[in-house]
């Protein structure tokens, strides 16, 4: 029985450290809700897109912007038509700066972190995710 337990534990640890990261949704979605333009025209402050977005290669490396409003909207670096979405993938870990008139600074940053390397990095990353899921429950 002890042998079995040791094997299962060893497998679990090895999987956490070395198994490739995949599956799940690679897209980080931000939506402009319907009526945003009307709320802005009424004088309300509407902040949808944060000035800094953090993505991770191989995990969540696609920025998805969707305009559900009735009018075209400048969203981050692009003008998106009503009902349209803009899907921007990132393949290099870096800090990307975009001009964005929706922000007071006029800038928006997308920080793309590298994919956690096999071994200790990946193990820590999975452990962190487990903890976050545990807290969410």
């Amino acid at each position, binding site marked *: 029985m002890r*042998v079995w337990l040791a094997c299962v534990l060893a497998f679990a640890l*090895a999987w956490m450290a070395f198994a490739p990261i995949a599956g799940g949704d690679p897209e980080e979605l931000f939506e402009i809700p319907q009526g945003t333009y009307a709320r802005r025209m009424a004088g309300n402050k509407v902040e949808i897109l944060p000035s800094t977005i953090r993505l991770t290669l191989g995990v969540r490396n696609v920025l998805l912007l969707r305009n559900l409003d009735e009018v075209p909207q400048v969203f981050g670096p692009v003008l998106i*038509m009503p009902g*349209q979405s*803009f*899907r921007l993938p990132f393949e290099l870990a870096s800090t990307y700066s975009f001009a964005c008139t929706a922000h007071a600074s006029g800038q928006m940053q997308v920080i793309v972190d590298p994919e956690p390397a096999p071994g200790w990095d990946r193990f820590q990353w999975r452990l962190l995710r487990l903890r976050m899921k545990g807290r969410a429950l």
Partner: protein
Amino acid sequence: MQPQRHRGTEEYRRAFSLCLCASVLAIFLSFPAWSAPALKAGVFEPPAKAPEFSLQGTDGKELKLARFQGKITLLVFGFTHCPEVCPTTLATLAQARKQLGAAADAVQVVYLTVDPARDDLDRIRKYLGAFDKSFIGGTARPEVLAAVREHYGVFAKKIESPGENYGMSHSTSVFLIDRQGRLRALMPYGHVPADFVHDLKLLLASK
């Protein structure tokens, strides 16, 4: 004693087999699902018709997107005094066209100035010619150019400095317009020629 040792060996063998199977299964499940090749640029879904414009072209003709129906148009906004972004972008696009070979005939680069006060047709023509003779530039009255920029969500702002040597802060992405004149994608600044070649091949192959 012997049967006990045999049972122990058997247990190790089973545990090892189970671990091996579980590892293979875990790795198999961890691989991403097969998917169709995607553009490296940001993609608009669904694609909408690219806003049309009517400007003066550096080739002496009226500069309209409709002229390039059937080709892929790469639309760039910039100014000829630009110290870094415009030369890098134009050199990248020239390199991408070279790498495309004969297929480059179906790709048109259009460069619209955001600085009409200094960029006249002659200056834009000479500037673009240094990168690729096929590039076409365009200018117009400031308010006409401002309206075009607004339709594309492009910003441009003068950075004041003493004398004539002012700068311009402007959007740096390249718009990819397909053969049907639809705005399909936007390539952010910083991509290498190979990324453009990748996307242009996909767009040229698509209907």
